[in-house]
C-alpha cells in the first residue's frame, strides 16, 4: 500500500532539485522549486517507477505573514502502482507565478483556473487562464487570507453574452 520510500526515491531521482521531503499522516510529500517543476512532473508521470498518470488535485494554501506566502499543492495518484504523492511548490507574493502543467494532465486546465481565481496565482503557459467560479469583473481573490469574508463587490454592467462574451473568441 503506502510506499514509505517514495519521497526518498524522488529525491535521488532529482539530486539537488528537491527542497524538502517528509511523510505526515501517511501522506508522502516532496517540496520542489518552480523552475524545475515541469521537468520533474513530466518524469513523475512518464517514469515507470513513479507512473503518476493522474493529477488528482491541485490547490493552494495562503500562509499570510510567512515567507514565501503561498504553497501550491499537487496531489498525484498512480492507477497502475496504486500510490500517492503530494508535491508542493512555494511561491512568493510579489512574483506569484507557477509554470502550468496543463500540457501534462488535462485536469490541470480547470484546476489551475480555479487557483488563479481563488488565490491570484498565475500559471505561465496556461492555454486559457481566466476565472472559473467567479465572474470576470470580480475584484480580488477570495481565498486569500487578507480578503475580508464580508467584503462587498461593486455592481457590474449588464453584458450581452453574444456580442461580448466572457471568453475570448
Amino acid at each position, binding site marked *: *500500500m503506502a510506499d514509505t520510500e517514495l519521497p526518498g526515491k524522488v529525491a535521488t531521482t532529482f539530486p539537488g532539485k528537491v527542497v524538502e521531503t517528509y511523510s*505526515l*499522516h*501517511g*501522506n508522502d510529500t516532496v517540496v520542489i522549486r518552480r523552475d524545475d517543476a515541469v521537468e520533474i512532473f513530466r518524469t513523475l508521470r512518464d517514469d515507470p517507477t513513479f507512473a503518476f*498518470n*493522474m*493529477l*488528482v*488535485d491541485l*490547490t493552494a*494554501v*495562503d500562509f499570510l505573514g510567512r515567507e514565501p506566502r503561498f504553497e501550491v*499543492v499537487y*496531489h498525484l495518484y498512480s*492507477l497502475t502502482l*496504486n500510490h*500517492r504523492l*503530494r508535491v508542493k511548490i512555494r511561491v512568493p507574493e510579489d512574483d506569484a507565478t507557477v509554470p502550468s502543467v496543463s500540457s501534462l*494532465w*488535462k*485536469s490541470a*486546465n*480547470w484546476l489551475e483556473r480555479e487557483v488563479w481565481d*481563488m488565490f491570484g496565482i498565475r500559471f505561465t503557459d496556461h492555454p486559457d487562464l481566466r*476565472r*472559473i*467560479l*467567479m*465572474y470576470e469583473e470580480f475584484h480580488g481573490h*477570495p*481565498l486569500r487570507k487578507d*480578503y475580508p*469574508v464580508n467584503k462587498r463587490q461593486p455592481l457590474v454592467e449588464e453584458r450581452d*453574452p*453574444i456580442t461580448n*462574451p*466572457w*471568453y475570448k*473568441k
Partner: protein
Amino acid sequence: MAATARQLVGEVLDPTSEVMTLQMGPSHPATHGTIKFNLRLDGEKILACEVEIGYLHRGFEKMCEQRTWNHVVPYTDRLNYASPLINNVAFALAAEKLLELEVPERCQYIRMIMSEISRITDHLTCLGMAATEAGAISVGFYMLEARETLYDLVTAVTGARLTVSYTRVGGITYDLPQGFAGMVKDAFQSIRQILADCDKLLSRNRIFVDRMSGVGVLSQEDAISYGVTGPLLRATGVPYDVRKAQPYLFYDRVEFDVPTGTQGDNYDRFTVRFEEIKQSMRIVEQALGQLPPGPICVDDPRVVLPAKRDVYGSIEGLMNHFKLVIEGVKIPPGEVYVPVEGANGELGFYLVSDGSGRPYRVRVRPPCFFGMAALGEMLKGYLVSDIITTFGMINMIGGECDR
C-alpha cells in the same frame, strides 16, 4: 462571423451551413443544475462545447475557515446533497486522521452503512433523472419511490432527509434506532423489486439504448488525463474504486465487486451505476451482520462533548462543553489528504490545521468538477440532444462542483 464548419474541424460537414453559436443555460429546463454551455453548432452537430460553471458558488472553503471544525459538518451536507452522508464521513475521517484518532468499531460500521445507503440514493437520483430526461418518466418515478424508502431510513437514523449533519469529529451523533436491520431488510426488498422493474423497462428498451449507447464516449486515456473517477472512469474499463484500492473504514472486511464497462459511453455509465446499487446493498447487509455493540464516539473529553448529565451536573462538565462549543476541537498543526469513494468518484478532503480550533484551509476535491471539465471533450461530434443524456450521466451536483 461566418467561419464555415470546414475551417473549424477540417472536414466537410455541410458546405452550405454556417457555424452557429448557441448559449444553453444557465437556467435551462432540461439541465438539472445551473450550468451554461457555450455551443458552436453545425446544424445539430456540436463542433465545440465550452462549459461554464460557478453559478452555485457559495464560498464553501472560505466559510469553513471562519468556523470550528465541527461547524464544517453542516456545510459538507450541502456539497453533494444527493449523498450528504458520504461528505460527512469523509470530512470526519480527514479531521480524525489529523488528530491520529481511532474511532470505535461500531461507529466505523455505522458510517460505512450510512455511506452506502447514501450512495444508493445518489445513484437512484442520477439514474431516475437521466431516464426521465430521456423520456422514460415512469422509471424516474419508480426510482424516486425507491429513494424515498431509503430517505425514510436516513430520517430514522439522523432525523433529516438531506441536511443530515450526522458525523462529528470523533464519532457520530446518534446510534442506529431499534429494529434498524429489519427496516433495511424491508426497504431493500422493495428496492430490489423496483430495480428489477426498471431493468425490464430500460436495459433492452430500443429508444433508451439508442439514446445512450455509443453517445458521450470518453476514451480511457482521456478519462485518466482529465482526472475523472468513479462510475465515469469505471465505464471506460478502469476498475479504480477507492474502497478497493486504498480501503478505509472496514471496506476490506466486506465482499463486493467493482463493476466496469467497456465502451466508456453513457450506456456503460448507466449500467455501472445500476450494478453499484446492488453492490452497495450487499455491503450494507454484510456490515449489518458484522455490526458489533459498543460506543459510537471516542472516549476523549478533548474531542467529544460530555454527556448532558455532566454538563448540567458538574462545573467540569459545563466548562468542557463550553470550551468545545466556543473554541472548538483543537487539532494539532499539520495537513492531510483523505480520499473516499463518493457516489460520483474520488471525494477528497485536504485539510490544513494551524493548531487552533478552526481549520486553516479546507479543500474539497469535488468528483463531478473533473467530469464537467471533460464534458466538452465528451460532446464533440454528437448532437444537441445528446447533451442532456451525457450531462445527466456525469451527475453534476452544483453544490459540489461550484462549492
